[in-house]
């Protein structure tokens, strides 16, 4: 078994080892996150990319231990600065959340409290984690708003969330998340609900703040464009497992896992004219999580799957170009076509 830190050029700030989070119903167990490994390098951005149901959001909630009944983290380790978060008491966790690790969500309107002013909501972090007085905290809140590029911050602190536009609200969320100067920021689809011109502003802001404050970021998204633009490393998830984990350039320039290749090929692009050809598709749809395939999770949709793939689950292994890949094709046990070229354009 390979180590997630093997591909990093930097020290990791966070390392997730064999994380398992399941949801329990009367009848069965849904393995939303099923043995996930990755590491986040200091001062850099790791992207976690996948489609609905891949487990990317549950992974991020697990890191902050925000999983609620009927969900449960049932195994693995989450090492933050070398210490296992899963072993901490609830009181210790509270000191970490919003202070050392912060999170921003997709829909700022549902994460912000509509009956408190923006200033009150940012101040809360300062008062809880840094014991500031109300007045002092309010002053720092205005400074935070200025930091995230909100004009006339002294007036804005007195406004309520509904008085702000979507882009402004997301800036407020970022201001709250960054208030206590966290070392790790988890951003769960931070720009998905925004228009592209506003998305460009927010991504630019996050990059700029990372340069200035030096925090590490986990960027959770389904948008491969956002990954290419903002991330240094990327973990591609499918049905609760990481299927490919590598430096961002390697994933886009030399994808190895058939799922990664399929995702990239099925994406229509505004900067390239494909002409009048069909888009390449990944056949079928994601299987129901209460009925997981026995072997490789992707085998039922994979154009290269063999008997081995349907029978046995492959491990995440290091490939020759450094990518970590969960696929039989790159192992000695591979029983299919030895010359198989996964990245070759195929017509379906």
């Amino acid at each position, binding site marked *: 078994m390979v180590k997630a830190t093997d591909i990093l050029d930097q020290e990791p700030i966070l390392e997730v080892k064999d994380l398992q989070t399941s949801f329990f119903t009367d009848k069965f167990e849904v393995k939303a996150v099923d043995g996930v490994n990755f590491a986040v390098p200091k001062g850099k951005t790791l992207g976690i990319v996948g489609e609905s149901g891949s487990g990317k959001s549950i992974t991020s909630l697990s890191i902050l231990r925000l999983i609620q009944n009927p969900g449960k983290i049932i195994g693995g380790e989450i090492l933050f600065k070398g210490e296992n978060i899963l072993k901490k008491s609830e009181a210790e966790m509270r000191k970490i959340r919003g202070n050392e690790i912060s999170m921003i969500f997709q829909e700022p309107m549902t994460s912000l409290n509509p009956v408190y002013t923006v200033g009150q909501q940012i101040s809360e972090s300062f008062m809880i984690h840094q014991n500031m007085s109300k007045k002092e905290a309010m002053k720092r809140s205005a400074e935070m708003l200025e930091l995230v590029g909100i004009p006339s911050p002294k007036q804005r602190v007195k406004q309520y969330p509904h008085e702000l536009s979507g882009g402004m609200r997301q800036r407020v969320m970022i201001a709250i998340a960054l208030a206590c100067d966290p070392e790790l920021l988890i951003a769960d689809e931070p720009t998905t609900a925004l*228009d592209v011109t506003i998305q460009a502003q927010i991504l630019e802001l996050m990059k700029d703040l990372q340069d200035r404050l030096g925090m590490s970021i986990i960027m959770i998204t389904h948008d491969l464009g956002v990954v*290419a633009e903002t991330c240094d490393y990327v973990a591609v998830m499918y049905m609760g497992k990481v299927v490919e984990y590598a430096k961002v350039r390697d994933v886009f320039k030399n994808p190895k896992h058939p799922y990664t290749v399929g995702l990239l090929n099925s994406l229509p692009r505004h900067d390239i004219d494909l002409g009048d050809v069909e*888009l390449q598709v990944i056949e079928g749809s994601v299987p129901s999580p209460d009925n997981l395939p026995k072997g490789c999770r992707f085998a039922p949709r994979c154009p290269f799957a063999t008997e081995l793939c349907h029978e046995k689950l492959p491990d995440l292994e290091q490939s020759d170009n450094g990518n970590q890949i969960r696929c039989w094709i790159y192992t000695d046990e591979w029983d299919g076509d030895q010359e198989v070229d996964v990245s070759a354009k195929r017509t379906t």
Partner: protein
Amino acid sequence: MPKELLKVKDLKQYFPIKGGLLGRTINHVKAVDGITFDVYEGETVSIVGESGCGKSTTGRAILRLDEPTAGEVEFDGEDLLALSKKDMRKKRKDLQVIFQDPYASINPRQTVRQILEEALEIQNVVPKNERAKKIADLMEVVGLGAHQADRFPHEFSGGQRQRIGIARALSVDPKLIIADEAVSALDVSIQAQVINLMKQLQRDFALTYLFISHDLGVVRHISDRVIVMYLGKIVEIGDKTSIFDNPHHPYTKALLSAIPVPDPDAQSERVLLEGDVPSPINPPQGCRFHTRCPFATERCRVEAPELRNIDGMKEGHMGACHFMEEIKNGTHQVE
């Protein structure tokens, strides 16, 4: 020369804002404010733009799901706005719509068979005894398989549900399908399947599409021509190659450059727009884009630009900007 199937002229859609003690109309949201375009038979025209630009309102106004405030909509030589409610209902056989969220737009208590049967019944497309066969055919055509006809919508995945929406639209043999963000809620791998299906159906049934979307990647792939809207107005219109490879309006350029490209080496220069889209209740005077435009001058603040074609633009490609020539030559001066 293909003939025009749909002609929209100076279409306006204002929504009243009621307020005050007496509940009078105190103002209007000018969602669509005077747009003109044609759609030719067999082509796909896309309307793109950000939230609030009026793209969905345009689709709804054409179908008279909301009665337009002013303007003309001519479909297949007939004035749609002059039809009575009853005649319009009959006319909708020719103009169908597919919405973004298939779960919200199909009845969860009906099986797929009942959903399709209802559509066939209302428009009376085929005689009763042929309906079962028609439904089976439709299911095959959209790739669901006839054996799934007796299932309920919740038994299908998101992509399959969108196929049900497509089957319902197709069931009445329409000429024009308005697809309002029809693939936006789907995952990429499923989205590609539905896009391919829509293109296939267009070839097989000689359909015309008005495709409303904010996703410019999808739009480039599916369209023949593209309309770019901003705050209720058309800012640029043209064939897709012109719009994507030779955009002339500063907003189109900014919009295209704002989209992240899934290629770490292709990071092009970005025109970062400042601020937000202004409110359509009191849109800016003059050019509506002037509050965010890096090239805006005094003239832009006062005079609204008309759509026009300049040297270096293909026929049919038009932009609504006073300074397209100057910006292109690099001689434009911002005061």
